């Protein structure tokens, strides 16, 4: 198993700050722009990158990420092309972990074994598959771990202590705590409860805990990053892309807009524990 995820979280911890985990949708707003956004993100302060696999029916996502997926699919994005993006990134950066995030059907149709082989070659470190709970571990989680790709599970406010054991059993890489019951892009309401939940999960596992859903600004990142080992920002970054578009297409400002926000967020995680 690649050690990129563990190494990067350790490096951030050594620096006394949480990791900044940034999400973009592969192929949004178009393949070329998306590759440039991906390639430049680490320089702006991203520590771990989640790359979304577009899907026609993203049941756990709010309108912003739904639209990003539609833009990518309309531009002809496929799982093949998404893996090729990772491969291109990996040639420039051998250390930053890349996590593919999405829904199961595109992977199932690609073929689980073939997908895992190709993902490994491309340099993928982990997978987050929203619609594969622990009950379906035999589908992808166990084969992925067998081939050395981490399977990162979501835990939520509805995951009680008993259930947590089930959820953590085959989790590897890090634990993704979803800060609320809801879809991506909703507003963060109770930051104290998030801190409590992170401490509760920490008492069950040695894996790093990253918190996502509802983190939009540098201040949010600083607040959540006090307790969490990583803060995940998705919708806010995707919205920065959306707001920069002209006639639905990338403009001269698109890359600068999202990279600027990554820089802000990186400043937020810097001061989280100061």
């Amino acid at each position, binding site marked *: 198993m690649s050690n990129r995820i563990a190494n990067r979280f350790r490096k951030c911890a050594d620096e006394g700050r949480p990791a900044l985990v940034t999400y973009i949708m592969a192929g949004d707003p178009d393949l070329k722009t998306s590759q440039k956004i991906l390639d430049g993100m680490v320089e702006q302060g991203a520590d771990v990158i989640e790359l979304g696999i577009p899907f026609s029916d993203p049941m756990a996502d709010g309108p912003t990420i739904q639209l990003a997926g539609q833009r990518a699919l309309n531009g002809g994005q496929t799982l093949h092309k998404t893996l090729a993006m990772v491969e291109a990134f990996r040639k420039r950066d051998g250390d930053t972990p890349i996590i593919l995030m999405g829904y199961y059907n*595109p992977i199932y149709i690609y073929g689980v074994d073939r997908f895992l082989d190709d993902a490994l070659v491309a340099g993928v470190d982990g997978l987050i598959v929203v619609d594969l709970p622990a009950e379906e571990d035999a589908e992808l989680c166990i084969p992925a771990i067998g081939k050395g790709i981490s399977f990162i599970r979501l835990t*939520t406010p509805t995951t009680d202590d008993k259930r947590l054991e089930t959820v953590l059993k085959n989790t590897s890489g890090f634990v993704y705590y979803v800060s609320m019951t809801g879809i991506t892009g909703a507003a963060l309401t109770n930051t104290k409860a998030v801190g409590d939940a992170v401490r509760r999960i920490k008492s069950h596992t040695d894996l790093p805990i990253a918190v996502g859903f509802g983190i939009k600004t540098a201040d949010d990142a600083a607040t959540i990053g006090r307790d969490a080992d990583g803060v995940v920002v998705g919708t806010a970054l995707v919205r920065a892309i959306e707001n920069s578009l002209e006639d639905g297409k990338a403009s001269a400002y698109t890359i600068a807009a999202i990279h600027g926000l990554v820089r802000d967020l990186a400043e937020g995680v810097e001061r989280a524990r100061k």
Partner: protein
Amino acid sequence: MNVANSLRNGPDETGHFGLYGGRFVAETLMPLILDLEQAYEAARNDPEYAAELGALNTHYTGRPSPLYFAERLTEHLGGAKIYFKREELNHTGSHKINNCLGQILLARRMGKTRIIAETGAGQHGVATATVCARFGLPCVVYMGATDVERQAPNVFRMKLLGAEVVPVTAGAGTLKDAMNEALRDWVTNVENTYYLIGTAAGPHPYPAMVRDFQSIIGTELREQFAEAEGKLPDAIVACVGGGSNAIGIFHAFLDDPDVAIYGAEAGGYGLDVEDGHCASMSGGRPGVLHGNRTYLLQNEDGQILEGHSISAGLDYPGVGPEHSFLKDSGRVTYVPITDNEALEAFQICTRLEGIIPALESAHGLAQVMKLAPTMGKDQTIVLSLSGRGDKDVNTVAKHLGVEV
């Protein structure tokens, strides 16, 4: 009956019908789905629950639904004797009420205070709004914007019943998109909300639970048919969208090999028209969507297609997992019926029998019209007449070029 080689044993304890079914949902929903499974197990073993549901079926829905000999249609087709199992006479006008009553009693037992549902043609939305009115629970129905337009009378009925109808503009604005939006609501309001799924699909235990509630159709039919003809029918036909009326009428007969069983899928403009039909079993392949593995219409990248059908209730690119299992096993024959075949059947039934069938049910009827002439006069076919067609009058008028 629970014999080893029975086709009626599914699903297994993890919710699988062979390869199909399962629980492909976000972690947020998983604890709730496990709760639901437990609550349903407890309810179905509770005589009080059965008695309450039985009384509502009798006095509220009007069960048993009649078995009707369609004499003039039989004469017209000149072959097998045709019977209708008249689910369209149920309160609210379709089989959907059977499932809604079962689930609303369950939601109450679970202490849920808010009900959500998805709907295509609006029949399930109306049935859900109805039981919510009956039990005084707030109700939100997600409905594709396209369907809101083509099923306007049902939208108004739902509003009269006190439900909030939320038009969904994502995608093609049909049943698939409504289901996505209902799942998003559920994952957000998981504490107090019960998701009343309208068809025998979704994550376990929904496919089994909805089938159980709808199985009353086949159970009654078995008895009624024995009384009418002194034997089992030679063939049973139902339309299949998600497939709840179909599994409901099929299930009691799965272990009777002499009964031929047919499911009529939405053939739309024809199977050869790309994205022009909703025949997920005749024209799709297995995939994972909306909580279960089943036959789906999809492209080579695993993206789900929108599909098309004249009938909003069949306009869904998937099907319940038990149907996928029954297709692979060869027990049930699934056939595509085009929009035009359904429209013709709709008109013939209306003129010959004085019964306006739902466009969904008209797909089943079109299959009956193909079968009957090939069978002997001593043979019999039963159609699940799952819904009435009042809601479709505007759609049919439009297709016939008539202004209403």
